């Protein structure tokens, strides 16, 4: 052994470790990494607008035309609401929903490419991975949802400044709930194929049941009423719809007739947000648990 090596080390060595502080820092950097990657991949941001545009203009305009005949507007007599305007908040929700789920896929990706190991061997609490990833996915999905607002004038939805401010927390909480679900699933998945399989079984039903494309208050068959109320996305999209459409000047009477009800009662925004927070927290606990299981 060399003499040099025996001399006292002059570099500082980690002696005591503050796990709680380290975990908070870890959450921050995991979140930040997701945003750096999101921002660097701007083509993806643009490309991901294709699907909402398709839904909004092709599907929305097409159905608007055929629905116009009977009662003038969508949502009852005397309403001037167009179908495309009705689904506009639903498309924001769709964007949030899909982005949240896909961002969770990066965990499986990281596992396959080895980067996850770098995180899992660090002297931090495992919950940092689940929380950091959920927040990272939620932030991206929120942006993806807000980007859709640019299209509002094209379908005749008027937005107020205050309305936009109000949409931000709604979009974020919805994104948080779905991201947590995605992370909880991704934490257990070994392969991309497996994750995509599970997600196809979750994502499309969640989207179609969420009332993004049709009103949930109307006379749905009983079984469908039950399923739609079990879908957390119903609450997220209904909240966004109330804010967007009321800021666009749609009367609360029309909104109530189109909106989500539970046991015959219209839900308040607060109730809906509470449902999302509770669901998100439950999923996040599952995600934390899954990461702790896998050492």
């Amino acid at each position, binding site marked *: 052994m*060399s003499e*040099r090596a025996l001399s006292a080390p002059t570099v500082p060595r980690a002696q005591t470790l*503050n796990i709680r502080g380290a975990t908070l820092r870890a959450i921050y950097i995991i979140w930040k990494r997701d945003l750096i*990657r999101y921002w660097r991949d701007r083509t993806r941001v643009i490309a991901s607008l294709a699907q909402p545009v398709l839904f909004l203009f092709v599907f929305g305009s097409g159905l608007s035309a055929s629905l116009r005949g009977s009662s003038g507007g969508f949502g009852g007599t005397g309403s001037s609401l167009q179908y495309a305007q009705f689904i506009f908040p639903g498309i924001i929700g769709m964007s949030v929903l899909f982005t949240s789920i896909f961002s969770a896929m990066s965990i499986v990706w990281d596992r396959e490419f*080895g980067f996850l190991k*770098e995180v899992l*061997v660090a002297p931090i609490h495992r919950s940092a991975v689940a929380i950091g990833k959920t927040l990272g996915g939620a932030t991206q999905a929120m942006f993806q949802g807000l980007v859709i607002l640019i299209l509002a004038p094209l379908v005749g939805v008027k937005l107020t400044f205050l309305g936009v401010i109000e949409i931000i927390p709604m979009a974020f909480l919805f994104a948080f709930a779905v991201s947590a679900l995605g992370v909880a699933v991704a934490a257990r998945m070994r392969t991309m194929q497996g994750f995509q399989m599970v997600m196809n079984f979750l994502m499309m039903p969640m989207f179609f049941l969420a009332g993004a494309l049709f009103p949930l208050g109307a006379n749905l068959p009983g079984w469908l009423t039950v399923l739609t109320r079990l879908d957390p996305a119903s609450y997220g999209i209904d909240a966004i719809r109330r804010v967007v459409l009321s800021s666009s000047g749609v009367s609360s009477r029309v909104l109530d007739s189109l909106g989500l009800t539970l046991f015959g009662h219209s839900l308040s925004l607060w109730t809906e947000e509470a449902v999302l927070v509770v669901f998100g927290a439950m999923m996040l606990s599952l995600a934390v648990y899954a990461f702790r299981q896998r050492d």
Partner: protein
Amino acid sequence: MSQPVIAVRDLVKTYGKVEAVRGIDLEVGPGEIFGFLGPNGAGKSTTISILCTLIRPTSGVAEVAGIDVLKDPSGVRARIGLVFQDPSLDGQLTGRENLDFHAYLYGLPGHTRKQRIDDALEIVELTERASSTVLTYSGGMRRRLEIARGILHYPQVLFLDEPTLGLDPQTRNKIWDYLHAVRTREHITIFMTTHYMDEAEFCDRIAIIDQGKIVALGTPAELKTRVGGDVVTITTPDAAAAVEQLRNVMHLEATQEDGTVRVEVSESASFMPRLFSELTIPITAVSARRPSLDDVFLKLTGRAIREQGMTSLDTMRNMGRIWGGGRR
């Protein structure tokens, strides 16, 4: 030796009926570069994974930086740096961002973070490429960045699992230059595995592991003296007769391999004239060389150290390596 940085006593790891590690004892001192050598499936990666707290041993004691790997895995992890066998960088981030990520994970204080990252980049000579995304790096550059990342949080030990695997010889030698620079600047202990025998020459001490047991431990020079003198390779049309004559006439034990005859002699210079005068069989070519660690391995185990097919143990190990497939 002063207080050892790594101390392992009677370490055993079994996977079902497969014994990956069958009772290993070893000590590594501060500032040493310690090489762990052996063929695929010998138990190298299993041992290093236990020391890094990634796998739990079946029995035995392992201490790293004075901390028991079973009692305080987080404490061990905070004091070690890791360079994995498989790449583990984020290709979409720049070199600096990868290091920044690591600095946060390991809680480097904010005011020294940037300086520390600059220093680490400088050691591995990546300062100029620090702002490029890792996707644009060559294989050697990625390895260097991983080494910089491994030392970033001032660990006491840097573990490297096959750090030169898949790199060309020139790049491999460069990696060794960087590792020596790291040792000098950081006063760090380096523990690495390899199955390239020639790389062991760069280590202060090496342990040769075969089938889960250490078969030899010492400095490269010490181990080479076990072969005794020089290795002479004789090419002849009749190898069997050559072995026969070497035994009967010159009283030397020779081995036959692919039509060549291999014999160990104390000194090749005086052996050559005798070889030609005393052997009657035709000799096509003769070469003599200093013993390499390949010769040591051959001598100790009776087998050449070569890339072998995937053994069942390798397969198990790989399964364990895929995260979450592990047993903890």
